[in-house]
């Protein structure tokens, strides 16, 4: 609602309040009606002067409460701009301050009290109760907890004081209280401060608000309230804004093969907590499945599980020991977790707008975490818990969103040895094991096999093009290819398209250095296509011939391999 004052007398806020206090009765009553919050709308007040800039200067000048539309629905406002936005809290706080300036029986005092009443604690409770379908008595109890140290300490020792929190003869769980507390007061920022960007702080005026917030802050620090204040906890959206979240029931139902259930649940201990069960299932799945590396070549192959699309037939056909993708793992994991008894929920998260990767997430009252058994992206911390679980290595794919008590780590420490048969080894233990092994002696230096091995590893890590060239340069400085560094140069291979356009593909030309003068003058050379990482073993003459024909050119005239160059025609 816009309140228009004629000109600046004191400041914008005080002038605006004065204007309200001197409104004609009809306008004032209309303002009061509008200012009372309801489920659909909660009005704010904007203060303007006649002298402020406006977009509709031809519309009639109005003072006081601006009518924006007439009876016929025509816009009659002037669309003022500029000025300062005040929250209702700030405006009402100023009203409260001004109260002392007026006699208690004055019109102004009466109006101020009436305005304050529209946005007091009682009004907030009424609105919250109505909007969220909450028993008003529960809200009363919540604010009683926040207003009394005695009630607060009983709240902390809830299990021994449940009778103090009964509503309408019914026992209420503490989580129900926490849910509403969290919704009302919200989360703390990185500096540990409660936000003021919530309704109770900005749209209402509660004089004791700071005291209430202090007690809420104590609750926040003492009890895990994250589930009710952090949207990420329940995966309201994915970790990134382009992620999508698939919840239980949002995809068609499907059946997990009995063989898989048997593999996972046959030895499940009976006394595990929900978090321990979640970790048990994760570890078990990591041991019974392997990663389908064909996914790395999905642009050349077309398989249903290489995409995010749901396929009942494919999923129901999975068996223990199968090679699976991140989509399969995440769907199956989420389904198994959602079938557990208890307050635990799992979702599947599809990453990115192109849904090129999947992981799962789950939450209980105590923890929220994601599980990502497979992630082979080279630009991230690649993880393959499917491999790690089979080798007794500490799993890395579980990442907590909220876990104040360290339950996930404890759960993994408990269930992992039960599944793997041993505790994950520490670095120290690995080093001890390494020292106990002899070094391999007289390992042959087969350059071609070494190159092939290297290229296979690069392909599986999706390292092509310039990144491959840079990595090869780094590896070339090691003893990987033996004591002598391979000679290296870059070549371009001319390619002509159907439309006649030309471009060059980059190749790396490698050659072993000459060892002895008696060695044959023509040596084997190795040509690597940096796009495909295909390796061609050929002779120096082959390269010279291709240089002569113009099919290949050196990238730089200054960096060539000696003895391999175009023949100069005299």
């Amino acid at each position, binding site marked *: 609602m816009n309140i228009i004052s004629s000109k600046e007398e004191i400041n914008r806020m005080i002038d605006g309040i004065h204007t309200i206090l001197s409104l004609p009765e009809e306008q004032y009553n209309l303002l009061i009606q509008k200012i009372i919050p309801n489920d659909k709308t909660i009005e704010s007040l904007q203060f303007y002067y006649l002298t402020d800039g406006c977009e509709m200067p031809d519309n009639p000048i109005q003072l006081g409460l601006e009518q924006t539309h007439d009876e016929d629905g025509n816009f009659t406002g002037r669309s003022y701009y500029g000025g300062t936005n005040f929250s209702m809290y700030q405006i009402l706080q100023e009203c409260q301050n001004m109260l002392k300036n007026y006699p208690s029986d004055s019109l102004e005092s009466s109006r101020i009290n009436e305005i304050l009443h529209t946005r007091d604690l009682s009004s907030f409770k009424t609105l919250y109760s109505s909007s969220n379908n909450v028993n008003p008595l529960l809200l009363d109890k919540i604010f009683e907890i926040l207003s009394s140290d005695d009630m607060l300490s009983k709240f902390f020792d809830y299990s021994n004081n449940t009778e103090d929190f009964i509503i309408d003869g019914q026992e209420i769980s503490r989580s129900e209280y926490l849910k509403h507390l969290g919704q009302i007061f919200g989360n703390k920022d990185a*500096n540990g401060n409660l936000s003021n960007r919530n309704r109770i702080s900005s749209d209402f005026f509660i004089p004791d608000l700071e005291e209430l917030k202090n007690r809420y802050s104590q609750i926040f620090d003492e009890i895990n309230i994250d589930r009710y204040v952090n949207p990420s906890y329940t995966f309201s959206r994915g970790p990134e804004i382009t992620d999508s979240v698939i919840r239980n029931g949002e995809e068609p139902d499907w059946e997990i093969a009995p063989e898989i259930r048997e593999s996972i649940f046959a030895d499940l201990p009976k006394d595990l907590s929900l978090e321990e069960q979640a970790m048990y299932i994760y570890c078990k799945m990591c041991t019974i499945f392997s990663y389908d590396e064909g996914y790395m070549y999905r642009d050349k192959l077309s398989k249903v599980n290489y995409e995010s699309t749901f396929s009942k037939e494919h999923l129901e056909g999975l068996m223990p020991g199968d090679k699976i993708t991140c989509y399969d793992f995440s769907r199956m994991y989420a389904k198994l977790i959602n079938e557990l008894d208890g307050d635990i929920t799992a979702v599947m998260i599809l990453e990115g707008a192109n849904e090129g990767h999947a992981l799962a997430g789950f939450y209980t009252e105590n923890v929220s975490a994601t599980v990502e058994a497979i992630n082979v992206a*080279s630009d991230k*911390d690649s993880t393959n818990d499917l491999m*790690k679980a089979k*080798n007794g*290595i*500490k799993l*890395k794919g579980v990442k907590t969103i909220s876990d104040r008590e360290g339950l996930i780590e404890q759960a993994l420490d408990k269930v992992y040895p039960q599944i793997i048969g041993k505790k994950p*080894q*520490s*670095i*120290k233990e*690995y*080093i001890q*094991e*390494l*020292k106990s*092994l002899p*070094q*391999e002696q007289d*390992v*042959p230096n*087969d350059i071609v*096999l*070494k190159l*092939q*091995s*290297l290229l*296979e*590893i*690069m392909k599986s*890590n999706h*390292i092509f093009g310039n*990144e491959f060239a*840079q*990595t090869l340069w*780094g*590896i070339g*400085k*090691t*003893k*990987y290819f033996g004591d002598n560094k391979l000679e290296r140069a870059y070549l371009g291979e001319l390619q002509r398209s159907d439309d006649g356009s030309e471009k060059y593909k980059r190749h790396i030309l490698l050659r072993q250095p000459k060892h002895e003068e008696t060695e044959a003058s023509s040596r084997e050379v190795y040509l690597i296509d940096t796009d495909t990482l295909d390796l061609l073993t050929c002779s120096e003459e082959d390269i010279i011939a291709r240089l002569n024909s113009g099919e290949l050119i050196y990238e730089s005239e200054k960096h060539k391999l000696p003895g391999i160059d175009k023949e100069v025609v005299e």
Partner: protein
Amino acid sequence: MTQLNELRLINDSNILYLKKINRSYKRNEIIKNILNDETCFFKMNKNDAYMILNDIGILDNQIDNIYQKLISSDEFYNLYKGKKLDLNDEEILIKYPIYNVDEIFKNKKTTSDNDESTHKNMELTPYKESFFIKILNRLKKIFSK
């Protein structure tokens, strides 16, 4: 690409090569397990690190340089910020102090709210005065000509 990732690639290539020529790759498998832990070099002493780097095939004259990068304070801090390193992990042998920025600057005085109005009311500093006077004098000269 990070230094650690490069080491992993070289080691993986070694494993594959040794498999192809039917030689034992047990040492490299253990090294692979070690390198899976991003904080591994902070959990071992220098001699063990050198042994591993030598096994991977790093040249002798490069080992120290690479090792120093792997255990640098920058690397430590990045792992800490990325929540990959737990300061309370008893396995960590090499540690760097982590500072709380708020603690460092807690005694620094902040400017008061009045400063802006104070500055507005201040006279121009001598530098600015002389700058304008120079311009004025130049204009006078031009017009006098």
